[in-house]
């Protein structure tokens, strides 16, 4: 055998092995063994995991942990914060290795596969946890109800509707009223047409599943067995987006930009509007002062009158060796006092009953942020989580790719949505 042949075959075999290595994490089965009782003594060490919070809220969390440890002598809370990128992969690696932290910060879509695999504590079925249920808003508690699994799998934590930022200067240059941001999708499409006439794009991303929901499209069937966004309403919505793309209302690179790079286009004032979060305000202030000076903050347009509710929760690992401590800590972080304190530090809203009736969320303090805070808080009781719990990353990509084909004119809106809905329904039927 020649040396080249040997090298080549080794390389090929190595390639296969290397590729398969990426799939190695899938070998486990979601941990093993039973956790301890939740009605036991609150003591010992637990691990608490959040995502993307340490950079801005280190002091807050260290304070909360200190308070808990003081109130419960003999307990130690080890806090880890994971980066937002690949958080789902980190969770899956931990879950398969049986090393999921005792208390985990999750959104409903991340909680679903973990709950299904039996790694999260069913709070409704746990007699200690179920007692806390009346403390939370009903909608928020139900936000962690999982289709096909009876019960709720996380203590509701903070809520958000997510602000929409817009560039008042660009609005003014296009002859639009800079103080009158679009409230409905029809107003958005009209404004986008006017901005496009001046050669300015309005948005930097194609529609998401939440946008379909806000337009009034039924995303899934009532029984959660199939996707239904390919109905007449969905087709109407995508047709309007297609027109907007053709007219230049969407950025030329909108079909390939990520949420992060779309944000950069807004920062560079290449698009007039972009959804974001309260953290973005600091970025604008530091990196784009001219944008900051002409920044408008409003709610995302909706035709249903209901905003999308982004929900975060704290789940308890069902295999925790210190389940009583984990449960007590998850409740402690999400109790009324701590949630309200957190809501004062950042533009998020508490999910505990009565909190939103407090003055901070009902009376504006004269600032732009205060005005938005009060307006958003008013919308929260009716807000809906338009993203189905079953909606996986793969489904997100399918919807994005099919809408992109439509916007490019390769498929009609009906063809694109039918294809997306069929593919996604097939995925949930495979489970």
């Amino acid at each position, binding site marked *: 055998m020649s040396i080249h042949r040997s090298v080549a075959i080794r390389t090929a075999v190595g390639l296969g092995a290397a590729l398969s290595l990426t799939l190695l994490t899938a070998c486990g089965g979601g941990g093993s063994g039973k956790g301890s009782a939740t009605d036991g003594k609150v003591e010992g060490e637990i691990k608490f995991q959040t995502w993307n919070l340490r950079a801005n809220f280190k002091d807050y969390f260290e304070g909360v942990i200190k308070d808990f440890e003081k109130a419960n002598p003999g307990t130690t809370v080890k806090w880890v914060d994971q980066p937002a990128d690949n958080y789902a992969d980190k969770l899956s690696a931990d879950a398969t290795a049986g090393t999921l932290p005792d208390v985990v910060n999750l959104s409903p879509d991340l909680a679903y596969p*973990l709950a299904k695999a039996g790694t999260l504590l069913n709070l409704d079925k746990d007699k200690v946890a179920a007692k806390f249920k009346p403390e939370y808003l009903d909608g928020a508690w139900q936000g962690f109800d999982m289709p096909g699994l009876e019960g709720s799998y996380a203590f509701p934590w903070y809520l958000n509707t997510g602000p929409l930022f817009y560039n008042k200067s660009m609005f003014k240059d296009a002859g639009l009223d800079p103080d009158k941001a679009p409230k409905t999708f029809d107003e958005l499409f009209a404004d986008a047409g006017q901005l496009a006439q001046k050669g300015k794009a309005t948005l930097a991303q194609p529609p998401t599943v939440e946008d379909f929901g806000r337009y009034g499209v039924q995303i899934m069937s009532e029984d959660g067995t199939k996707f239904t966004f390919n109905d007449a309403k969905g087709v109407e919505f995508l047709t309007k987006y297609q027109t907007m793309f053709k007219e230049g209302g969407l950025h030329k690179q909108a079909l390939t930009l990520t949420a992060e790079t779309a944000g950069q286009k807004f920062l560079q004032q290449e698009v007039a509007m972009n959804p974001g979060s309260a953290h973005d305000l600091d970025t604008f202030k530091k990196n784009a002062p001219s944008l900051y000076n002409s920044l408008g903050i409003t709610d995302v347009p909706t035709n249903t009158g209901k905003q999308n509710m982004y929900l975060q929760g704290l789940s308890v690992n069902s295999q925790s060796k210190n389940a009583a401590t984990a449960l007590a800590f998850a409740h402690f972080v999400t109790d009324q006092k701590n949630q309200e304190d957190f809501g004062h530090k950042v533009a998020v809203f508490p999910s505990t009953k009565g909190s939103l009736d407090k003055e901070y969320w009902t009376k504006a303090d004269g600032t732009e942020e205060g005005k938005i805070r009060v307006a958003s808080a008013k919308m929260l009781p009716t807000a809906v989580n338009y993203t189905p719990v079953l909606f996986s990353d793969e489904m997100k990509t399918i919807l994005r790719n099919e809408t992109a084909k439509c916007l490019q004119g390769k498929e009609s809106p009906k063809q694109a949505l039918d294809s997306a809905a069929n593919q996604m329904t097939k995925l949930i039927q495979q489970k």
Partner: protein
Amino acid sequence: MSTSTPTVATKGAAGRPRTAAPGRRAGRPAGRTHKAFSPWLFLAPGLLITLAFNLYPFLATVWKSFTDARTLTTGEFVGFDNFTALVHDDQFWVALRNSALYVVLVVPCLVLLPLLLALLVQRHIPGIAFFRSAYYTPVVASVVVVALMWVWMLDDRGFINGVLHLVGVDPVPFLSNQWLLLLSSMALTVWKGLGYYMIIYLAALANVPRELHEAAEVDGAGPIRRFVSITMPSVRSTMVLVGALSSVSAFKVFTEVFMIAGPTGGPGGTDTTLVMLIQRTGTGLQGRTGYASAMSIVLFLLTLVLMLLVLRADRKDKD
């Protein structure tokens, strides 16, 4: 009488003298037991690592490809269902086409251009060391950082379009056109690989006898004739090696396309490559690891076939 160290000399079966150490039983070969397992002791660390990190994952992938496993479930045996589903998966064919295009367009560039570059920097002229280092720099640079720089350069308002604008050319949609996105990714792969293969060629060129070139020059052969008739045949084996290595790299391309065309693989996923599709399908909390494993196996077999074809062509050529 001799006073040297006492040894016991015996006759072996074949009549050859055999010497045993003092105290060792006669008739037993010295150190045979030790010799039997000592190679395995030396091999053990590498062997264990290979078994744990290469062979086991590979076999696990083969097994998973016949199951409906997901990230958090081991799944059940489904026979060839995953492979049948692949045949009917449009996105798989798009990914296969893009990976094949990558091989077809990138490999010839990576076989030929580094050779030309090596010929250029092979010369002993002042300051050539700087150029050798400069051409090698992309190899050691982080592909993610480099790709980000390329994205900035290729942007509608980036450096390249800025230059084109100065000479009155309309912006080229490098980052929004399906084919330009793929070509831009290929250009990045070629640019990043040039230095690596250049070093391999430099080593091969050092072994080409100078006399051959001198004789050809005396006979009136020009630079192109010498390149075709002397240089290329002399480094033919290295060209095959580079072709094989770059084919594998091209087939498993991920980062360049992911960074330039975005995580969705270009507009509508039209620039997705096989490895991108494997990553997208098999990762995340709800990843379909069984299906992704089936794709991995197909990729492995395709690569293996490609390699065997290259080697067969090489052997035929030699014969």
